[in-house]
């Protein structure tokens, strides 16, 4: 980077005269990196402290304000071999961290209480069958009450809040029967303690809370880990722009520092980083990542351009507009609102079970009480037995059945390079029977590639790709990707709008338009093999070749689509590109059902038609134009290269150049879903055995404690199978280590 990047927007100035910046670091792979980075930075004059968090790869640097520019820190890291990206922690992430800490505190309190109460309870149980005096037993019960009541009041808050929230919205969730069970068991135990009875259930209540909080915390921790990696990736992607200052000077800034009304300079070959209106200059831009259209659009003054477009041949000056001002953005946002409103809230498996479960359990308890009274028992005994039914059915295993599987399965997805945005996506993914792909940037790679590389003599190709390193043209960058020798030739001259040339080994070398290289005669023959490709030429002395550049399929697209089909999934394409451009892709993949030229509204219409047939649709897309369709589909995926607005709509985001994660996501979700059902089945069988026991009054506190911990352990162990099985799938996933796709391109 020749120009220094102005990072002042990310610097936090503190009252004690120090400045602070948070950076996300790319390229940390071993423990030695910690010392290298921290020691390296501390040697810089003015740096007070550098602390690397090895878990989430973030670095906090503090220095005496004014003695150092943050760009120096980034440059020093670059010299050490790490890429640093300024990082602004998002509000959501801080909120999640606070919640995780709170859950951990609740878990600690519940753990402390359950250990101490169990100590007292075991003494009472063994005393009951030997020689405990009633006075000692009462003393122990009072002590247990003293610990349990404040502990439940504190550690039970996550459940009380969630149950209250559900009831206020006139719904029930799994937390409602949990809270009812906890409160009834507590009040009964206090009542029994006052009456110096033999049995209390303080231990069951607190142990139940402890198990449930474990499940909650694990769930939260997994989601937090996913979010941390996702926001690191977002800051790796964060873009820079050249802002034109009042005095006409040009500064390089991160786009986060730009405000509406700023003027921005975009040179040929650069990606436009902001939405804006052209105020000077004219050019052709490639909007394929925005609209899916691969043909270029000519822009001049007053034209609207969108972030993510690629500027081809002219220099543009833009005025930055506030988000949501452009015509396309307006349409996309209007459609998004409609789609979100129309989307019926998916009721999660656990909530559906809870809806049936709560009334059944409460009826069972009522029947128990009535039967006992009818057969001549005292009201006191009848109530005690009814409450025992409620305690034993308190959905400990049921409440763990789904979340534990989700935690283990999202861990498996994480290793396959897929990040979940929505926790309930597993159930929707597992039911998918139709997969709809966008074409540009989803089935094809987001960057251009050379398609006829195999037909060109290797030495010529090597020379052409090395020469291409010196060109700024987007088509040349596709050729430059293939260069093994990354050193550009010396004294390369760029002829604007035509190409580049250099003298190598005494012969002139040219790369550019066919006319520039004198290769017009070869164009017709080459173009006939692939009418969709852009044609450039390369000449070296007398040797001339034609290079065909276009968007190529992801390397494993054909295999993945075939595997999806073998698993009974119907694959389709809905593209915003021209039908002539979609047809060859569809043919290569063997997809018969495809449509081109779709506006965002057309995509939604097509999806609604599919849904009306009763299909469950997975939409995979990346463009800004796909955002409404992703929101409208039953479940959605997008590659990491997708537009920000689009990623926000997707249920999961996948990394890398390959399409395989789509297949893996569906496989893992299907396995997770079947395990969730198995777990619910286990919980059901447990209840079928436990309820009759409780009904006939055989449930002592000891039985309750054993039954609860036993069923919870069983369900948790079963959930662990979500990571264990299908090693073949994982073995293939491992080599494609989750690396962000071609950042440099």
């Amino acid at each position, binding site marked *: 980077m020749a120009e220094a990047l102005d990072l002042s927007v990310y610097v936090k100035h503190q009252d004690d005269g120090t400045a602070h910046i948070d950076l996300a670091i790319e390229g940390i792979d071993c*423990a030695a990196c*910690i*010392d290298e980075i921290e*020691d390296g930075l501390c040697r810089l004059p003015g740096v007070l402290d550098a602390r*690397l*968090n*090895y*878990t*989430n790869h973030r670095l906090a640097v503090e220095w005496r304000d004014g003695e150092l520019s943050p760009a120096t820190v980034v440059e020093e890291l670059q010299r050490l071999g790490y890429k640093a990206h300024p990082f602004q922690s998002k509000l959501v992430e801080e909120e999640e961290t606070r919640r995780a*800490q709170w859950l*951990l*505190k609740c878990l*600690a*309190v519940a753990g*402390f209480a359950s*250990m*101490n109460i169990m*100590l007292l309870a075991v003494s009472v149980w063994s005393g009951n069958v030997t020689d405990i*005096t009633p006075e*000692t037993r009462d*003393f122990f019960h009072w*002590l247990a009450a003293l*610990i349990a009541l404040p502990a439940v009041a504190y550690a039970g808050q996550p459940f009380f809040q969630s149950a209250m929230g559900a009831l206020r919205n006139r719904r029930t969730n799994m937390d409602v029967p949990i809270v009812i069970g906890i409160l009834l068991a507590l009040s009964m135990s206090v009542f029994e303690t006052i009456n110096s009875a033999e049995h209390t259930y303080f231990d069951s209540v607190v142990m139940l809370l402890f198990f449930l909080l474990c499940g909650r915390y694990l769930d939260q921790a997994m989601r937090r880990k996913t979010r941390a990696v996702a926001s690191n990736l977002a800051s790796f992607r964060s873009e820079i722009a050249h802002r034109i200052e009042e005095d006409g000077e040009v500064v390089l800034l991160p786009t986060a520092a730009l405000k509406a009304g700023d003027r921005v300079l975009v040179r040929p070959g650069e990606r436009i980083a902001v939405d804006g209106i052209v105020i000077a200059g004219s050019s052709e831009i490639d909007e394929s990542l925005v609209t899916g259209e691969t043909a270029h659009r000519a822009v001049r003054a007053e034209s609207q351009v969108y972030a993510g477009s690629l500027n081809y041949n002219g220099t543009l000056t833009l005025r930055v507009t506030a988000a949501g001002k452009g015509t396309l953005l307006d349409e996309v946002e209007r459609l998004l609102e409609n789609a979100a409103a129309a989307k019926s809230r998916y009721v999660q498996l656990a909530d559906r079970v809870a809806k049936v479960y709560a009334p059944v359990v409460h009826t069972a308890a009522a029947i128990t009480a009535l039967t006992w009274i009818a057969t001549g028992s005292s009201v006191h005994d009848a109530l005690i037995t009814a409450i025992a039914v409620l305690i034993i059915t308190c959905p400990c295993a049921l409440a763990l059945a789904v979340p534990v599987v989700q935690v283990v399965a999202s861990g498996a997805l994480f290793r396959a390079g897929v990040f979940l945005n929505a926790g309930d996506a597993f159930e929707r993914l597992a039911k998918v029977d139709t997969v709809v792909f966008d074409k540009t940037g989803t089935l094809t790679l987001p960057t251009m590639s050379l398609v006829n590389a195999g037909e060109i003599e290797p030495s010529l190709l090597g020379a052409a790709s090395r020469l291409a390193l010196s060109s700024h043209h987007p088509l040349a960058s596709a050729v430059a990707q293939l260069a093994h020798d990354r050193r550009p030739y010396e004294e390369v001259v760029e002829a604007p709008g035509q190409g580049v040339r250099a003298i190598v080994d005494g012969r002139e070398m040219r790369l550019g338009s066919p006319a520039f290289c004198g290769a017009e005669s070869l164009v017709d023959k080459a173009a006939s093999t692939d009418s969709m490709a852009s044609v450039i030429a390369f000449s070296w002395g007398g040797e001339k070749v034609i290079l065909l550049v276009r968007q190529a399929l992801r390397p494993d697209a054909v295999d993945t689509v075939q595997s999806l089909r073998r698993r009974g999934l119907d694959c389709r394409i809905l593209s915003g590109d021209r039908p002539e451009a979609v047809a060859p892709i569809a043919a290569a993949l063997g997809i018969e059902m495809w449509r081109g030229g779709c506006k965002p509204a057309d995509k939604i219409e097509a999806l609604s038609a599919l849904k009306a047939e009763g299909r469950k649709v997975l939409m995979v897309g990346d463009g800004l134009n796909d955002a409404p369709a992703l929101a409208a589909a039953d479940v959605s995926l997008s590659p990491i290269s997708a537009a920000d607005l689009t990623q926000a709509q997707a249920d999961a985001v996948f990394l890398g150049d390959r399409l395989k994660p789509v297949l893996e996501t569906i496989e893992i979700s299907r396995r997770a879903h079947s395990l969730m059902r198995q777990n619910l089945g286990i919980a059901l069988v447990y209840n079928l055995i436990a309820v009759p026991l409780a009904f006939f009054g055989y449930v002592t506190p000891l039985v309750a404690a054993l039954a609860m911990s036993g069923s919870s352990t069983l369900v948790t162990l079963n959930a662990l199978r979500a990571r264990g099985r299908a090693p073949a799938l994982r073995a293939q996933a491992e080599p494609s280590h989750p690396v962000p796709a071609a950042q440099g391109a």
Partner: protein
Amino acid sequence: MEVLIYLVPTALLLGLTGLVAFLWSLKNGQYDDVQGAAVRVLSDDDVKR
């Protein structure tokens, strides 16, 4: 059974100490970088400086 008079409070006190220690370590940021803590123990930065 008089032994209970001081055994029970002792047991409770020990448990509470553990809880307080945990809450302190949580507040002190001991769990913010779990993987880092595992590898930092191996570095000899205390010897160098």
